[in-house]
């Protein structure tokens, strides 16, 4: 079953490359607009060989990880307060719903004014992009805990603080995971978007350089890298955790 799906995928992607090569061979557009698969592959090999690509990946990933870590810590804290204190939810809660609808690149001008062309500026955009998704998911998780868990815990003499850390947060874990997953997706868009505009290192910067040099192969190869990182993190990190959590929590 699984092998069959993999086979289908390989055929599909191979077909894309073949069609791409055929279209390229028809010479409809110039090479500067429409490169061949080989040119993109060469560009990838070149970027890998001279290290720029790995440095770009490392820079973007580092910003992503720092930003996402801040969002996870902050989002869980905010979500817990919203779930436990009604007036926090009624006030800050409504603001957060509003802020979540702000597209991540819309934070860039503010970030440039506040932080200038720095790592902190890009991390700020990353946090602003992902914080509210984590917050909202934590809040719904806390609100959807079976009341019997709380009754059982209080019954065994659990204090209020223990109740939150030892019962409510673990009980809400399936929701937290979807918050992290959404948060990561928003954070990744935020990092790349900010890097393009800040033009200060990272994969987004490499995209921008590609555009400035009129190097379409570089633009496409960096886009491919961004996409592949997305697929890997989604498939290997989140899918695995999600599957494990769902079955253990009895949700699958």
């Amino acid at each position, binding site marked *: 079953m699984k092998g069959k799906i993999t086979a289908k995928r390989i055929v599909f992607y191979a077909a894309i490359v073949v069609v791409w090569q055929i279209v390229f061979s028809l010479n409809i557009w110039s090479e500067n607009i429409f490169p061949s698969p080989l040119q993109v592959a060469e560009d990838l090999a070149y970027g890998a060989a001279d290290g720029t690509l790995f440095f770009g990946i490392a820079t973007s990933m580092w910003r992503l990880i720092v930003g996402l870590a801040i969002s996870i810590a902050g989002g869980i804290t905010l979500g817990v307060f919203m779930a436990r204190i009604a007036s926090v939810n009624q006030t800050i809660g409504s603001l957060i719903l509003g802020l979540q609808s702000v597209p991540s690149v819309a934070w860039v001008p503010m970030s440039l004014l506040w932080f200038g062309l720095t790592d902190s500026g890009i991390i700020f955009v990353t946090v602003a992009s992902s914080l509210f998704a984590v917050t909202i998911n934590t809040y719904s998780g806390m609100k959807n805990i*079976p009341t019997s868990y709380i*009754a059982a815990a209080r*019954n*065994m*003499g*659990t*204090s209020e603080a223990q109740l939150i850390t030892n019962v409510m947060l*673990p009980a809400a874990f399936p929701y937290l995971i979807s918050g992290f997953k959404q948060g990561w997706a928003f954070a990744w868009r935020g990092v790349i978007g900010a890097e393009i505009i800040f033009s200060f290192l990272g994969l987004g910067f490499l995209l921008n350089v590609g555009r400035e040099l009129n190097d379409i192969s570089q633009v496409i190869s960096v886009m491919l890298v961004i996409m592949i990182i997305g697929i890997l993190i989604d498939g290997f990190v989140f899918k695995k955790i999600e599957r494990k959590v769902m079955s253990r929590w*009895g949700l699958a």
Partner: protein
Amino acid sequence: MTKLEARNIVKRFDHNGNPVLALDGINLKVDEGDFVCIVGPSGCGKSTFLNIVAGLEKPDSGEILLNGNTISTPGPDRTMVFQEGALFPWLKVIDNVEFGLKMAGIPKNERAQISQRYLDMMQLTKFANSYTYQLSTGMKQRVAIARALVMDPEILLMDEPFAALDAQTRDLLLVELQLIWERTKKTILFVTHSIAESVILGNRVVVFKNRPAKIKKEFVIDYRRPRLAEDENLLKYQQEILAELRTEVKAQIKREFEE
């Protein structure tokens, strides 16, 4: 000696803006080491009463005394076994069993000693490192009982713990619970809608009247243990209680029909 006393417990619920009387002055004394069953039709207020005893809900008036002292908050001196088990799926069986001890700050090796005893008693040793999703419903209830017993409560509260089990598993656990009661000498207050269950388990069976709940009558089941589910001598006790409840059930059906 009286272990637990409920004095004139009254509880109202808000039902679409109208207060509805759920418990209408429940008076009950449970002696130390006794096994008391409360039986009554579904929705008559058994869980509400047990939650008040546990301290999970507050009565509108009346009080609960444990060893002569008024109680108002939940505590590990009155642990409860719920119908749904309410086990924590993120913890292994052994960590579920040790949960209350851990919260109480008892050191790890001491916890392990205590939990081992109850894992053995509930025949769970093999499953100590399993997660709850890997267990059958019957196994889950064993874990829930072990988790409540490790706290060495003054009184064990059980709210229809066997209602979701298949008949064979339930019959087995009905016998086991009697053996555990004899071994641990715990005071048990057990709530069920099943008359058969109540006469198998209880020294005393307290019959709740429906809407608002009141104690209608009490039966003493003076019969040897362990009592088996298929013991026909228990039928006469069942019939006595059924006769008492029949008028209740009829009234309820009539009410539901009219609603």
